């Protein structure tokens, strides 16, 4: 089952209400969306730690999303080229949130992924003189160096945060983790379900 925000909201609503949800459900869909994002970030963190524990270096490909034809722009103030991050990126240690950046038709010819600021360390070293294309994340942009001549758009593969996903966008998550994911969202909402609603506008918490 491909999970979307709308599907998750419907599922959670059903689970929490023990069947068909009333017309005014206890959980507003925006709350479920927010919890879906929190739970997914946690799932990614768990998957990353398991990966490290197993001695592996790669997360399952289902976590990643490919963004095609991302336009290359120029930052005239600093003379750097960049692309806008197509979505908020999930930052993981060792830049694992970013799988690859490459020209559209050359998926195997990926740019070197660097840490922001590392260009000053490599400046003057032999590896820098090879002028291989490279990329680093800074703010909400992906800055690129030594981009091949004529390349005007890029293929960006990364783990996106889902806050700016539309309700019918498929959430990138491995199928084997879907049950755990739904359970996690449900548990995160337990507190809200069990706590009686505060009907008085005062400073007392229930």
């Amino acid at each position: 089952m491909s999970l979307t925000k709308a599907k998750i909201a419907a599922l959670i609503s059903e689970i929490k209400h023990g069947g068909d949800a009333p017309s005014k459900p206890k959980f507003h869909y925006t709350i479920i969306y927010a919890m879906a994002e929190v739970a997914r970030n946690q799932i990614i963190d768990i998957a990353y730690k398991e990966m490290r524990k197993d001695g592996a270096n790669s997360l399952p490909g289902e976590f990643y999303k490919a963004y095609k034809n991302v336009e290359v722009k120029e930052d005239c103030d600093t003379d750097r080229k960049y692309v806008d991050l197509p979505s908020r990126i999930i930052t993981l240690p060792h830049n694992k949130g970013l799988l690859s950046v490459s020209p559209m038709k050359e998926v195997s010819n990926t740019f070197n992924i660097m840490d922001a600021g590392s260009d000053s360390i490599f400046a003057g070293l032999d590896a820098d003189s090879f002028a291989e294309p490279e990329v680093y994340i800074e703010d909400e942009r992906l800055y690129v160096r030594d981009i091949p001549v004529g390349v005007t758009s890029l293929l960006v593969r990364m783990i996106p945060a889902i806050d700016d996903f539309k309700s019918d966008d498929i959430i990138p998550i491995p199928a084997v983790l879907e049950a755990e994911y739904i359970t996690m969202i449900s548990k995160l909402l337990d507190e809200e379900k069990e706590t009686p609603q505060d009907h008085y506008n005062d400073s007392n918490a229930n």
Partner: protein
Amino acid sequence: MGKEHTSGYVSLNYIVNLVLMDINENTSVKRKKALQYAILGLTRLNLYTLDSVRTAYLTQNDNFTVDVPNDYIDYTKVGVIVDGQLITLSLNPDIPFPDKNKCTPASPMSKDENGFNLFGSDYYFPDFGYSYLDYYRNGQYVGEQYGLGGGLGLFEFRYNPEDRQIAFTDKASNGEIILEYKSSGINKDGSSIIPREAVEPLRRWVHWQLDEYNDKIAQSAKTRRERLFLEAEADLRHFNFIFTIDEYMDNKYSVSKQTISR
């Protein structure tokens, strides 16, 4: 269709990809770091283990100097061609270096009593020959050459490491110097080639270097990596010094003779 064979040479990228494959690294996060270590490793192997002598034809500047190639580490021979023959030149540590900003030589050209350039086609002196290595020029194979000995004090050179130039006391008749030199093996355009036998030591070197400065890795693991590299390097050294059957037979016949057995 003929048999397919793998190439006898590989590139630096081959080594880097091999290392990244070993550690299951599917992104290019460590690529540049691994490339830098591979370059350092290749330089080390070229200095101490691999046979990495190259030949370059260099045009003399107006002040009689030549600029050495980027990958130059040290010269093995310096010579000129006169009348189709190579003449090896002599080192003279007393040659003054010319001003880099001027086109004039630091020392005057040697002239004979008639004012002719002393070093010309009529002036070469047979002496001990030095063998040059085979190389390719413009795609043509140039076999072993023999340079005639220098040491005559007419045309000498001195290396200027600061400016990466070689200064000469004279101008070659055709303005061209032949330099045979020890190379770092690194081409700035990324076209450096690595012989197959050097793949394993280089691969182990990069693994060792990636771990060496990581404080989270146990010292025992680092020491093991170092040992693995040194073993592979020793294998490479052995490979380079091994002789062919012809070389063995030549040597055998040169020291033995047939006599009547009594």
